[in-house]
């Protein structure tokens, strides 16, 4: 552990990070997660920490609390000064005191973050609150009937309510710094906006600085004074929110921005994506972390590491070619248009009065409780058409997809496919949808066996399918565990379309992806369905994705189809009150 470097901490800053390096081991192999972070946070300031999964953004949050997971055998060096107290190398006793009063965290998943066997009130009192203060703080987070909530056990509350409890728990300690690690990703869109507003208001009231960890630039734009973009454990770019989002200077920030889509994106063409999963091999020795994916990378990027350089407008960027980024952005706005679609008039899928209920409980003497999940759904998808099915969790959209796929029988109603051929499905968790011990080649080849093709014909079909989904044919003999999540999703798509189905069903295929990967997957699915003339049912909770990919949007609320129509019509003039709520809750960059 190196001794903390001497540096002058600006008077206004509550938190100063200097030269922070963190190495964590996974399965016994150590890897550098944070690679020299320098950063200051002012009192009461809101800073968004933006980056994709694996960028090290959550590790910064944990390091600030001295809570790096012990099983990962963390090696940490550098300095973290919080309100004048050094955290790196602090004794456990001092760290506990710091956690009690100086730094608190609101976690990503409110469902797991509360002790299931302790009442809400007791968990809040553990932090040093009196019973009256508990009720007062619960009320301040906008929870109805705080007295009753305090007496409840966590499992009786909804996700949004639990997140409010956790915010109350953190803010009641009046910390100087609050770490909010993707606090809304596990919540429904309608709740997300309320939670963000609550966080911002409370922080302003108590002059608490917030480090807001997110992968979504639009969320960052709504909330933060400054944005810090993190890539591969290093700061790519830091700056004032409006400047950075208006004109990013690092190719990675530009990539995040161009790949991001919302309700105002151009849906007549594909999304602009600037980075690929892997463009070139990682060089040995010092190099820019982003060199493997960067569209601007030159030889200098593979030989030297760019430092953070202060720009005339005050922001800092770590890129040798920052001057070329604006051109790159302009170029990305001219993304290719969608290919011509081949449509027919026959129905690829016809759902007629689908009803489904699930029973729960029940026993020898008690009738099970029936919960109706789908109540008489009628839906037709024409050949070559894409219908997006949107709704919150629990609205029944995944159940409807499974019925349409023939994986689940409906209680009542009929499902019919064009030509009676069962459709193909692309699932949300691509890694789980692949058999772990079969190679890419074997997984795809299984679909060709019934066709009676020769071995050579099969090989050329597989090569063509991999080419179609943009996977390097060299990966044919790889196992799923050797591939990235994005590559796995491409393989599942290749497997589905190698024998082009009349109908492709997609169950939240992008919900677990970061922006650039999501954009690439949307481009892929949107192009494929047009060029192959497939009909598609695209289930998602993301209205912006639905609008981009689909010809029609169907809105599902508690098992009822409340609205169906052209995407722009549904979004600009929603008819059902539920649709209005959904549309209003989507964060927009422009606003």
């Amino acid at each position, binding site marked *: 552990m190196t001794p903390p470097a001497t540096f002058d901490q600006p008077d206004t800053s509550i938190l100063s990070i200097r030269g922070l390096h963190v190495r964590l081991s996974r399965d016994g192999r150590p890897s550098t997660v944070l690679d020299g972070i320098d950063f200051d946070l002012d009192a009461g300031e809101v800073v968004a920490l933006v980056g994709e999964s694996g960028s090290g953004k959550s590790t910064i949050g944990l390091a600030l*609390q001295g*809570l790096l997971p012990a099983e990962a055998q963390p090696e940490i060096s550098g300095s973290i000064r919080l309100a004048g107290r050094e955290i790196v190398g602090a004794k*456990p006793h001092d760290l*506990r*005191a*710091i*956690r*009690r*009063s100086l730094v*608190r*965290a609101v*976690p990503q*998943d409110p469902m*797991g*973050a*509360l*002790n*299931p*066997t*302790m009442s809400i009130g007791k968990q809040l009192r*553990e*932090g040093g609150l009196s019973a009256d203060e508990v009720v007062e703080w619960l009320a301040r987070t906008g929870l109805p009937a705080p007295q009753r909530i305090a007496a409840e*056990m966590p*499992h009786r509350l909804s996700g949004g309510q639990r997140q409010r409890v*956790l915010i109350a*728990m*953190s803010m009641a*300690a009046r910390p100087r710094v609050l770490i909010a690690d993707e606090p809304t990703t596990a919540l429904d869109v309608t709740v997300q906006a309320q939670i963000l507003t609550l966080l911002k208001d409370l922080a302003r009231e108590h002059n608490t600085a917030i480090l807001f960890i997110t992968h979504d630039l639009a969320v960052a734009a709504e909330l933060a004074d400054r944005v810090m973009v993190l890539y591969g454990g290093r700061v790519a770019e830091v700056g004032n929110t409006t400047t950075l989002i208006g004109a990013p200077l690092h190719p990675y920030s530009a990539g995040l921005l161009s790949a991001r889509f919302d309700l105002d994106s151009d849906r007549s063409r594909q999304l602009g994506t600037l980075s690929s999963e892997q463009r070139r091999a990682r060089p040995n020795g010092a190099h820019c972390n982003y060199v493997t994916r960067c569209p601007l990378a030159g030889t200098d990027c593979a030989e030297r590491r760019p430092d953070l350089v202060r720009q005339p407008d005050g922001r800092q960027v770590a890129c040798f070619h920052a001057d070329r980024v604006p051109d790159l952005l302009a170029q990305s706005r001219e993304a290719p248009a969608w290919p011509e679609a081949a449509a027919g008039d026959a129905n690829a899928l016809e759902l007629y009065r689908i009803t489904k209920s699930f029973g729960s*409980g029940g*026993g020898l*003497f*008690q009738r099970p409780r029936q919960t109706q999940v789908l109540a008489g759904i009628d839906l037709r998808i024409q050949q070559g058409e894409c219908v997006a099915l949107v709704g919150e969790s629990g609205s029944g959209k995944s159940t409807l997809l499974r019925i349409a796929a023939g994986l689940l029988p409906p209680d009542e109603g009929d499902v019919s496919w064009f030509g009676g051929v069962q459709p193909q499905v692309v699932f949300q968790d691509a890694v789980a949808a692949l058999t772990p011990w079969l190679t890419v080649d074997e997984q795809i080849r299984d679909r060709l066996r019934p066709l009676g093709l020769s071995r050579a014909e099969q090989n050329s079909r597989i090569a063509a399918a991999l080419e179609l989904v943009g996977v390097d044919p060299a990966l044919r003999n790889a196992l799923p565990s050797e591939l990235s999540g994005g590559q796995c999703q491409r393989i599942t798509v290749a497997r589905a379309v190698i024998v082009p189905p009349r109908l492709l069903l997609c169950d939240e295929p992008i919900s677990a992806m970061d922006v650039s990967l999501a954009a690439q997957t949307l481009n892929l699915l949107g192009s494929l369905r047009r060029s192959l003339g497939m009909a598609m049912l695209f289930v998602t909770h993301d209205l912006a994705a639905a609008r981009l990919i689909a010809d029609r949007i169907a809105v599902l609320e508690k098992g009822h189809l409340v609205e169906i129509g052209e995407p722009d019509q549904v979004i600009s003039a929603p008819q059902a009150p539920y649709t209005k709520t959904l549309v209003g809750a989507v964060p927009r960059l422009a606003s």
Partner: protein
Amino acid sequence: MAAYLFKRLGGLVLVLVVMSFIVFCLQAIIPADPARALAGPSAPPETIAQIRTELGLDQPLLAQYGTFVRHLAEGNLGTSIRTRQPVAADVLKYGPASLELIIAAMLLGTSLAFILAFAQTTMRRSGAVRLGMLAAGSFPIFLTALLLAYFLWFKLGWFPGSGRLDIRRFTGPTGLFVLDGLLLGRPDIALNALWHLALPALTLSVPIAISVGRSLNSALVDVLRQPYIRTAHGKGLSGGRIFLRHGLRNAASAPLAMLGLQVGLLYGNLLIVERIFSWPGLGLYTVQSFASSDLPAILGVAMVFGAFYILMTMLVEILQSVADPRIALR
């Protein structure tokens, strides 16, 4: 809660009725003649016929079953052929000794389970503990009993190897001698009873300690990785408090279920342990009944243990729902 108890007790009655039917069928099928057994080998046929009438053995089977169930409902488990006493009276006489042994074994087993699980969860190198548990767990119970008796009684003489007390003919209000000694103001008797309990209770506790300990350890390892443990750390609580207040209670459910299962399996081990340590309880009583084909006694004790098992399961379920409010009793 009331509805749950009502349901479970109803279930208890149902199980007892089914068991009684099986027991009755066994008695009817097995070609042993209780009348002849009672009368003795040299009795004249008239005496046997008379006993037959007294016992109702000349009645049709269904009527015999009716009588059997009526007797059961009155707490009459039949008459032991060996002791010539009502089985119910024998159960009351020998039951307390077994109950005392079971309680001691459960308390000892649970404490050992805690120690083992704690050592395994917190120690950096827990391989030795794990290996020791594996070795001890692979021993059959009679070997454990014999080894403990050989070393701790025969070689070292630390603990007695048989009986419940050094004093003969002691009787107390409850029949649990440790408790009786305390109630009667005779701590010397309580201590002496405890001293005698040591070896048989330790033997019986080994399988409990190992299975419950292993289950508690794996539950703890899982629970300590949960996000709410990080939340607790984030509040600045101390490690000990987090382990006790947030870890242990959430890990309780699986080991409790294991404890219930082990107590249910205790009956088989009880026969062996009471026999080896000459412990005058229901286990020894059953072994002796086997030797003299005393069917009413064997089946009566089996019914008592069946009921005991159901009550223990119920207790475990109640404890589980106390530990974890998400488990609803129904």
